[in-house]
């Protein structure tokens, strides 16, 4: 599905829909990304100071119980949300953020079946590690996607 950007929307929700459409149009439909975006929507459509969703994202495949790390540069004073979605709706997943010394730095997090999210407000700029895991199953290998927003 490719949604074309025809004009600049005036309302945040409209902007958001255009944004999501543009993101989908970039490469291919990914059910995990679709799920992650669904989880992100409330934070992207905040009336005051909504999070800005990055177009770049990560994706891959995880087996039951498997964990992976994503290393990513974060900046002090920003407020980030990372959202994970699994392609298999029967999977349960988790996502948490660690600093470069391995300390858990989530401000808050949630896990709702095949979507999860974690928020971090970095105390220092530098590399952080996003720990993603399929915590429940068995569902077999499942596709996953991680997106993030900042403000």
């Amino acid at each position: 599905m490719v949604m074309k950007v025809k004009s600049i929307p005036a309302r945040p929700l409209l902007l958001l829909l255009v944004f999501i459409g543009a993101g989908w149009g970039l490469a291919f439909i990914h059910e995990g990304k679709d799920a992650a975006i669904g989880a992100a929507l409330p934070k992207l459509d905040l009336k005051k100071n909504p999070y800005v969703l990055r177009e770049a994202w990560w994706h891959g495949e995880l087996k039951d119980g498997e964990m992976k790390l994503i290393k990513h540069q974060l900046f002090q004073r920003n407020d980030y949300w990372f959202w994970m979605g699994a392609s298999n709706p029967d999977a349960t997943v988790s996502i948490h953020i660690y600093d470069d010394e391995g300390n858990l730095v989530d401000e808050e997090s949630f896990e709702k079946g095949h979507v999860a999210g974690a928020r971090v407000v970095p105390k220092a700029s530098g590399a952080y590690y996003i720990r993603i895991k399929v915590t429940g199953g068995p569902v077999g290998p499942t596709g996953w996607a991680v997106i993030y927003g900042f403000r």
Partner: protein
Amino acid sequence: MGESAPKKINLNQLKVEVIQDVVIPIPQEIFASLDKLGQQSWRSQVTGTKVKLDTNRARTALLFGMVVADGFIAVQAEDRDEVKRVGRQVLELAGALGVKSAVNEHALSIIEGANAGEWRAVKHELDSTRETVIQTMEEMRDQDFATLVSIGGWLGGTRALASLMDANYKEEGAELLHQPELLADIIRRYREMPAKSHPGPLFDQVEETLVNLKPLMKKGANGNISKNSVTKVKQLTGALSKAAYGN
């Protein structure tokens, strides 16, 4: 509820895959943090430098990233004319890279957004433009050019940050230059590219600049990035930018 997350993990002993797909932050992420320290003189960073194209597509890719970074700076300055100029420049560069059709609507939206003063929408379109070009190039098996677009954008944002902090040094602002792991990943990606994909002396300067930035973009023993380091980062990235633009 899932299992609770461990409070501490041993990053050196964990036998798990660390995903090598590096997402390079866009300038807007750095600028968002900088703005929280107070008003910045963004207008001083608007260069209005025009691109002189040649047949070196690798240079065009690097410039594409730099021009998009210029767009983020112009949005920070709320400079409508400069944002529109960037929009037109993006189209020209996309044409030279053979990805104009993919970028066309985004570039037009950048120009329309500037006219309407819809800065949030323009920022989004700049990120979309950048990502669309990267994705399109990857689909065209031009992965190396996609990498150069990312590196160009990072260099453009770093130049602006260092320049602002050089003019008005603040420890908490200069701290944003602390990016040693990211820089190491950028250098690794750059060196993974075959030399023939980025010919010419400009790219010798790119590698030299990246290597010379390494000791500067790391906090010192006092936990700060020094004013001296900031000045050197500004000089290195400024000189590279000048060489890339051909001015």
